[in-house]
């Protein structure tokens, strides 16, 4: 049981996507113009990730190694279609706002990355814990980034204006440049925080995990990443 809790909590801080392990950048940048969008995207990813992890780990003994990537993609794609239909049915306006990025969840490397690195090697329960943790971490990060950009760019959080009269929002922050710059600053901030913490613990500051290839979309296909795992 403690191991399940560990699998769950690692996604919340130690391997928090996309800040600690730089995965799934496209939606992170694209949909975080508001906190609400970020939350919605995060929830969709959480749903797909947890279920795909569960299904893949359940089927991991049946899926032949040679075509496993194709199988993972089909499973993820089916789940994404389900999410699309659900969102169309219940939160159509959000579906409209997220636009093309909902179908693109299928190529989000968090899904394939976790499938390859974790679900295909572990049992159903730990895989669900892993998916939930990672998904929840992703949701939190996206909501945080969305809230930050919305505040700076629009002067609101979840559509509610911030109670500060003198604040003049910079519209730039909700546009593409703001997304890149915000994420860059947050990553730098995380690095600074980690260095501070490890220095306090008296350890040698380490570079963020996979700093060199973390952002590459193809970790599941890449020889280097496979070696590290």
């Amino acid at each position, binding site marked *: 049981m403690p191991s399940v809790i560990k699998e769950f909590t690692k996604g919340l801080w130690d391997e928090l996507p996309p800040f600690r392990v730089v995965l799934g950048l496209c939606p992170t940048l694209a949909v975080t113009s508001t906190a609400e969008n970020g939350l919605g995207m995060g929830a969709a990813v959480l749903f797909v990730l947890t279920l795909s992890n569960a299904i893949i780990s359940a089927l991991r003994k049946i899926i032949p190694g040679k075509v496993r990537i194709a199988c993972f993609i*089909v499973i993820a794609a089916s789940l994404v279609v389900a999410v699309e239909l659900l969102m169309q049915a219940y939160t159509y306006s959000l579906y409209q706002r997220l636009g093309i990025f909902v179908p693109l969840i299928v190529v989000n490397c968090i899904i394939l990355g976790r499938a390859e690195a974790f679900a295909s090697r572990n049992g159903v329960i730990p895989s669900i814990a892993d998916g939930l943790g990672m998904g929840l971490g992703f949701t939190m990060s996206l909501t945080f980034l969305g809230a930050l950009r919305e505040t700076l760019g629009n002067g609101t959080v979840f559509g509610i204006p911030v109670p500060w009269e003198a604040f003049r929002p910079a519209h730039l922050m909700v546009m593409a440049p703001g997304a890149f710059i915000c994420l860059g600053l947050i990553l730098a901030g995380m690095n600074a925080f980690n260095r501070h913490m490890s220095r306090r613990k008296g350890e040698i500051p380490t570079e963020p995990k996979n700093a060199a290839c973390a952002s590459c979309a193809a970790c599941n296909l890449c020889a*280097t990443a496979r*070696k590290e795992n």
Partner: protein
Amino acid sequence: MVASSILVLFLLGLTAAAILAVASRLLHVAEDPRVARVEACLPGANCGGCGYPGCSAAAAAVVDGTAPAEVCIVGNIETSQRIAAIMGAEVHFKEPRVATNICSGGDRANLIFDYKGVEDCRAEALLYGGEKSCGIGCIGLGTCVKVCPFNALRLSEAGVPVVDWNACRSCGKCAEACPTGAIRISSVTSVLLHLNQTDDCLAPCMQKCPAQINVRRYIQQIKQKDLRGALLTIKEHNPLPLIAGRICPAPCENICRRKIVDEGVAIHTLQRFVADWEMQSGIRVPLYCNPPSGHKVAIIGGGPTGLSCAYFLRRVGHEPTIFERREHIGGMMRGVIPEYRLPKKVVDWEVQTILNLGVETRTGVAFGRDVTLKDLEREGFEAVLIATGAWKVPPLGIENDDAEGVVDAISFLERFGREGPDMSGVRVVVVGGSNTAIDVARSARRQNALVTVLVPAIQRKMTANKDEVERALEIGADLRFLTAPLALHVENGAVSGVTYCDLAYDDPGKAAGEPKPVSGTKAFIEADLVVAASDRVVDHSLFTDADGNPLFKRDKKTGGVSANPTTLQTDIPNVFVGGEVHTGRNILIQAVADGRRAARAIHFHVTRGAVPEPDNQQVQVIPETILKNMHVTYTIPRVQVPLTPLEERRISFKEEVACSISYDVARKEASRCLRCGLTCYDADAGAEYTQDDDVRPIDRPGSE
């Protein structure tokens, strides 16, 4: 709709799968499965050091047969063995290589401007070659550290890169990135066979020394009490430090920068100290040798050139055999140079060190008489080094020079070395001003002969070592400077005396050129024995083919066998020549240097079939390294080597005249070294000895 969805997806999946299945069958490229297996052996760093675009390309080349099993330069011998196992091939020996920094200057160098730009050596080098005045030194912004894929480099406090040789995989990235060439990839072979280049960091001593010994490094190692390291440093260039430390006239000390402020560092005394340390410990420091390469080389002559060449060839992996005419290896060093200068046991120890590496010897075999070039070729020797020396003493060329009682210096010294006869009361006249002449004079004098030397020069223009002339005078030899014999007098068939005349230079102040006889001067001296020691020349009669035609051209200037000066290759491509047989009468360290140079040429000849000329070879002393002004803080007196007292020298023949020094003395002498670079130097060398009474700050004019 449900049915159509299922159907469409099913059909689509089926089609895609079918197409891919068919395609993979039809478009199958017959890929050698060994490629993947070879690639799995490779480190996967994709560094490109092997010359292929990546590990997979290298693997493909190996399977293709275009690359050998030892293609990967960052992998170790195990990598090669595993690949060879897959390929069913044999592993050839792969010489380990590492990156090495040649710059010792660091922050000592003068700045020509203050650089404040991109922190990258390559960027800084674009501006006048960097802020440091030295064009070849390390710029110190650590580009090499950044490009190293294996984290094997760091910058030292002085701002020069330090290589972690355990981590370095010799991929060459650092050397490629370095704009000044201060960091290079080196191997045992490249270090042992490297010839000075004008873009090396060369202190004046290292340029002047014919053997190009890394003086700066071994003196620093002595200072750090790393005597083993110092010995290995010397042996990168000179396999005979015991001998060179005793009889080398040390041209390096004359050009030493410390001479500008006080006296040159006693470099050869320190070399002897290191070598004596090894011999007195009784245990030979192991020398790394590459495993045998299968290339056999014949070396004619077991003197310093032959020994040096055999030593270097053996260390880089070849299999030399020395052919020696006499019964002992060692040439003139053993038996001709007298005991009190160079004891036999010292020579034997040094020779044994070299032979222990795996050098074969055949004694009592004379070239031309017992063995010819044809025989050697037939026996499988791929190259031949002729190093027979210059043993012929030309006759005096005056009246009665073939009378009884007239001997040449070499036979005299050889006989003396064997027998050491009592010569009380014998009147000996020696003709010549070389070390040989002085050796004859000293030997005869020590056995109580009455010795007169007719020296055709003034004292400071003699070719003999200055110290040795002093020793001869101390012991009571009568040196008559600026004289030459005119005729020998004969009584009852034996020599009885010499008439000689005075000589004079055209310009006595400068004493330049050859002195000429002064007409009208004539003197007579009685003699029982006349020793001709004016010169030693090459005996060309050895080098003739079956029809009696000469094998080689004769060099007009030196009188030796002519050859390419860099590669020492003669007109016969697989025959090389070195030492006195090429240069004419010369000093020992030149012979050692020739042996090394010949080893380099032979190495390239047997491995590549051609001998490349080195780039930017340093031939003359680089002018910018000769400084006019020095700002040195402390003056420290040069070490005085203790000598055996005169009385003892008269009674004993075996005792060495010059004695050893202790470590503390050696260390203080080593601290006099300014650790010179091409232009930089340590201004406050010796600061740790300021407590001593004899170490004083130098008063600089205008400083107070």
